[in-house]
C-alpha cells in the first residue's frame, strides 16, 4: 500500500530522515518505533505532504504522492492524527468531522451541496461515526471543551471521516491511562477490520507490541530493523538504539511541526 | 535635473545615515515581538510621546537641553510599562487579536493626548550636534546622523549583551520560546515581559528623541509613518532578529533615498513597498529571521 523508497529529509545539516525504505502492506497494522528524534514524526509529515522530501519517493498503491498537495493526499486516501492533539477547538464536535468529511464512493454530494448544503443526511452518518467513537452525546459540544481522552477519540474519528485507505497515527496513546490505551487498541483493531491500513507511531510499547502486525524501528532517520513484534523485542540493535545510545539524540528540529 | 554618480553615492550616504533612525525603531519592535510574539502597534507613538515629554520638561524646567535625551527615554519606558499593563498583561495568552486591538487603541490615545497638548503644532527640537555638517571629499555628511548611527550600533550591542549574557536575557528568551515551560521553571514571565516593555520603551524613547533631533521638528504627523517604517524594518530584518533590524534600517533608508532621487517622491514609497512585498513572498522570514511556522 505505502511504499517509501530512498526517502530523505534534511533540515539544514540535520538528516531527519535518511534514505528510508519502508513498505506497509494493505490491511496491516504497521508499528513504527524509535527513540526521540529518530525521524518518526518527520516521516508522517513527509507522507502527508507537510514537508517536501529532500529526495526519494512516496507511493500509495503505486501512485506517486510526491507532487500532490496535502489535501490531495487526503483524496488519495491518507489521513492522520497529530502527536499533540490539533482539533478545531472552537468548532463543535460534529463540525470537526463535517470539515474533514468525504462522502463514500457513489454517494457524493454535488459541488454546491458539498460546500453550501446543510446536509442532514451527512449529519446522520457523522452521528454514526461519533457513536462509534463514543462521542454520540457530545456532538454539539465545542471540541476544545472535551476531556483529553475524548479529544483523542475525536481526532481519530476526524481522521476516519475522510474515508481513508491508510491512517497514520502519530503517538495516539501519549498521555493516556492504561484503560484508555486498551480502548484505543480495540479501536485500532476495529479499523483494521474495516479494511483500513494503519501506520502506528508509538512510544507505548504495550500498545505497539500488542496491536501491530509488523514493526519497524527507526534510528537516525533510517530503518534499523523490521519484523514481527516478537522479533523486534528480541533484536539487540533495537535495544541498543533505545537504551544504549540515548545520548545521541540527533535532530532536535525534526519534530518541529508538533511542538 | 541630471543625476550623476556623485548624486547617487551622496543619496546612498544620506539614506544609510538616516536609516539608522529606522534601525533604532525596528530594534524596539523586534525586541517586543521577539519576547512576546505579539505586536505593539502603539510602540512608535509611545516613542514619540517620550520625546515630547522630554521636550516639555526642558521647556518647563530650566535644565540643559541635552537632558532631553535622558528624560525622553525614561518617560517612554514608563509609557511602555503602562501600555504593557493596559494592553497585554491581562489578555488571554493565546489571544493575538485582543492585545493588538488594545494597542491600536493605545496608539490613538497617545497620539490624541499629544495632539491635545500641542494642538498638533510642530515644535522645535534641540539638535544633537548643531552645526556638525562636514565634507568628506565631494560628499557632505551629517555629523549628528553619524552619531545616531554610532548609537544604533551601541544599542544593538547593549541589547545583544542583555539578551545573551544576562539572566534577564535568558529569562526573556526562555519566555519567548516556551512561556508555559518558563513559568514552570520558576521564571516570572509577567515580570520578564514587563521588563522587556520597559527596555524596549527606553530604547524607543531614545530613538524618538534621536529622530526628533535629526529632523529638528517634532509633530504628531510622523507617528503613523514611523509605525509603518518600523514594521517594514522589523519584517525585512526578520522577526526577532536584532542585527536584522539594524541592517534593514540602513537598507530601507538607502533604498528609499535612491528611489527618491531617481523616480521622485510620488513613486518613492511604491518601490519601498514593492521591495517589502518581494521580500515577504520570496524570503518570508526576512534577512535573518528563523522559520516562524514552528508553532
Amino acid at each position, binding site marked *: 500500500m505505502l511504499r517509501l523508497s530512498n526517502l530523505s529529509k534534511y533540515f539544514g545539516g540535520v538528516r531527519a530522515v535518511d534514505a528510508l525504505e519502508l513498505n506497509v502492506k494493505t490491511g496491516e497494522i504497521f508499528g513504527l518505533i524509535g527513540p526521540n528524534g529518530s525521524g518518526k514524526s518527520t516521516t508522517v509529515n513527509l507522507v*502527508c505532504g507537510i514537508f517536501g522530501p529532500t529526495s526519494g519517493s512516496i507511493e500509495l498503491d503505486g501512485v506517486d504522492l510526491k507532487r500532490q498537495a*496535502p*489535501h490531495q493526499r*487526503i483524496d488519495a486516501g491518507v*489521513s*492522520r492524527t*497529530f502527536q499533540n492533539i*490539533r*482539533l*478545531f477547538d*472552537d*468548532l*463543535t464536535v460534529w*463540525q470537526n468531522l463535517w*470539515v*474533514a*468529511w468525504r462522502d463514500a464512493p457513489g454517494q457524493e454530494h454535488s459541488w454546491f451541496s*458539498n*460546500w*453550501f*448544503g*446543510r*446536509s442532514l443526511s451527512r449529519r446522520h452518518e457523522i452521528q454514526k461515526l461519533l457513536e462509534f467513537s463514543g462521542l454520540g452525546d457530545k456532538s*454539539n*459540544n*465545542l471540541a476544545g*471543551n472535551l476531556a483529553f481522552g475524548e479529544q483523542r477519540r475525536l481526532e481519530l474519528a476526524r481522521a476516519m471521516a*475522510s474515508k481513508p485507505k491508510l491512517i497514520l497515527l502519530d503517538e495516539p496513546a501519549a498521555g493516556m491511562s492504561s484503560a484508555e490505551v486498551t480502548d484505543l487498541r480495540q479501536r485500532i483493531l476495529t479499523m483494521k477490520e474495516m479494511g483500513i491500513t494503519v501506520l502506528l507511531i508509538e512510544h507505548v510499547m504495550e500498545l505497539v507490541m500488542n496491536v501491530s502486525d509488523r514493526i519497524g524501528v527507526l534510528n537516525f532517520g533510517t530503518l534499523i530493523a523490521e519484523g514481527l513484534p516478537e522479533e523486534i523485542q528480541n533484536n539487540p540493535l533495537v535495544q541498543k538504539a533505545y537504551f544504549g545510545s540515548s545520548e545521541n539524540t540527533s535532530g532536535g528540529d525534526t519534530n518541529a511541526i508538533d511542538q | 535635473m541630471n543625476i550623476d554618480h556623485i548624486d547617487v553615492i551622496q543619496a546612498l550616504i544620506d539614506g544609510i545615515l538616516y536609516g539608522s533612525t529606522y534601525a533604532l525603531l525596528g530594534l524596539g519592535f523586534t525586541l517586543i515581538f521577539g519576547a512576546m510574539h505579539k*505586536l505593539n502597534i502603539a510602540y512608535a507613538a509611545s516613542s514619540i510621546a517620550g520625546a515630547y515629554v522630554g521636550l516639555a520638561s526642558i521647556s518647563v524646567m530650566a535644565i540643559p537641553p541635552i537632558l532631553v535625551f535622558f528624560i525622553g527615554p525614561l518617560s517612554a519606558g514608563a509609557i511602555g510599562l503602562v501600555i504593557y499593563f*493596559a*494592553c497585554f498583561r491581562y*489578555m488571554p495568552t493565546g489571544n493575538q487579536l*485582543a*492585545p*493588538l*486591538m*488594545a494597542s*491600536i*487603541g*493605545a496608539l*490613538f*490615545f497617545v*497620539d*490624541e*493626548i499629544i495632539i491635545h497638548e500641542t494642538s498638533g503644532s510642530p515644535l522645535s527640537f534641540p539638535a544633537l550636534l548643531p552645526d556638525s555638517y562636514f565634507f568628506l571629499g565631494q560628499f557632505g555628511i551629517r555629523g549628528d546622523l553619524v552619531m545616531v548611527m554610532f548609537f544604533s550600533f551601541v544599542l544593538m550591542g547593549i541589547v545583544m549583551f542583555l539578551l545573551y549574557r544576562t539572566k534577564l536575557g535568558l529569562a526573556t528568551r526562555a519566555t519567548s520560546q516556551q512561556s508555559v515551560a518558563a513559568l514552570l521553571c520558576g521564571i516570572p514571565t509577567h515580570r520578564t515581559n514587563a521588563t522587556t516593555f520597559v527596555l524596549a520603551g527606553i530604547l524607543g524613547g531614545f530613538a524618538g528623541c534621536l529622530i526628533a533631533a535629526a529632523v529638528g521638528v517634532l509633530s504628531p504627523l510622523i507617528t*503613523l509613518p514611523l*509605525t*509603518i517604517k518600523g514594521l*517594514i524594518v*522589523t*519584517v525585512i530584518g526578520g522577526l526577532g532578529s536584532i542585527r536584522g533590524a539594524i541592517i534593514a534600517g540602513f537598507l530601507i533608508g538607502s533604498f528609499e533615498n535612491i528611489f527618491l532621487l531617481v523616480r521622485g517622491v*510620488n*513613486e518613492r*514609497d*511604491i518601490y519601498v513597498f*514593492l521591495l517589502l*512585498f518581494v521580500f*515577504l513572498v520570496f524570503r*518570508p522570514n526576512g534577512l535573518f529571521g528563523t522559520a*516562524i511556522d514552528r508553532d
Partner: protein
Amino acid sequence: MLYFLGIFQTIGVHTLLGLSAYVLLLTGQLSLGQVGFFAIGAYVSGILTVLFSWHIFAALAVGALVAGFFAFLIGFPALRVKGLMLVVATIAFSEIVRLFFFNLSWRVEVNGFDVGPDSTQGFREIRYFAANGWEQTHVVALIWSFVILVMFLLWWLDRVRAGAVLRAVGEDDLAAQSSGVNLTMVKVAAMTAGGVIAGIGGGLFAHSTTYVDHHTFTILLATFAVSYPILGGHKNVFGTLLAVIFIQGFVIEGLRFMGDYRNIVFGLLIILAMNLRPQGLVDGHFISDIKKKLGGKPKKDSADA
C-alpha cells in the same frame, strides 16, 4: 433626521468594510489590505458614474468585481505569509493602491466641467445620488440592502459546511490541510470574497461622501476595518455590526458632547473594551445570553467560549 440618515450611511458603509475583514479573520488572516480593495471599489465605481455616466448599480457591480479580481490576485502571494508578516504584507498592498490613486490623474470634460480623479487634488463631485434626485432615505435603503444581503450571506455561511471549513482553517490551518481542506482555494476564496465586499463598500462610500482622495484610504482606515470584527468578535457576524455602531455611532457621533475629549476617550474605550471582552463584544456568552432571553434553547454547552 437628515443627520441620522447620514449616520446610517456611515454605519452601513463601515459595516461592509468591517465584514470584508471579518471574512478573512474567519480564516485566521489579519488583513490591513481591505482599505486597498475599498479604494479600488470607490475609484472604479466613481469613475464609471462620473466619467462615463453609468448607472449606479452597474458601476457598483464593476467596482466590486475589479476589487475582487485584485483580491484574488493578492490571495496567492498572501498565502505564503502568516500572522504579523501578513499584516505587513497587506499594509504594503493597500499603500501601493493608495499611492497608485495618489498618482492617478484622469480628467475628462463632461457637460462642460472637468471631472475625474485629479491626483492630489482628489476626485471631486461624485454626486450621482443628489444629481439624480435620490433622497437620503433612498441612499440609506440602497446601502443597507447591501449590508443586509452581505450579512445574511455570511450568517448563512456559518450554517453550511463552507463556513465550518473557513473557521477550521482559521483555527489551525495545518490540521485543516491534513483534514483534506484545500488551503489555497479556501484562503484565496476568502480573500476574493473580502475584496468584493470591500469593493461594494468603497463604491457606496465614494457616492455617499461625493469625494475621495488618497488621504481617505490610509492605514488609519485600514486599522478601523480590522478593528470592527476584532472589537465585535468574530464568533458572529452581528459582532461586526455592533462594533461599527459602537465606534461610528456611539464613540464618534454619540460622544460629541465631550467636545475636546472625545477623541481621547476613543482610544481609552477601545483599550477598556478589549480588556473586558478579549473575545470581542459579541462573544460566546453574549450569544447564549441572548438566546436565553429570546426563550430559545441554547445549544447545550456549545456557546461556551
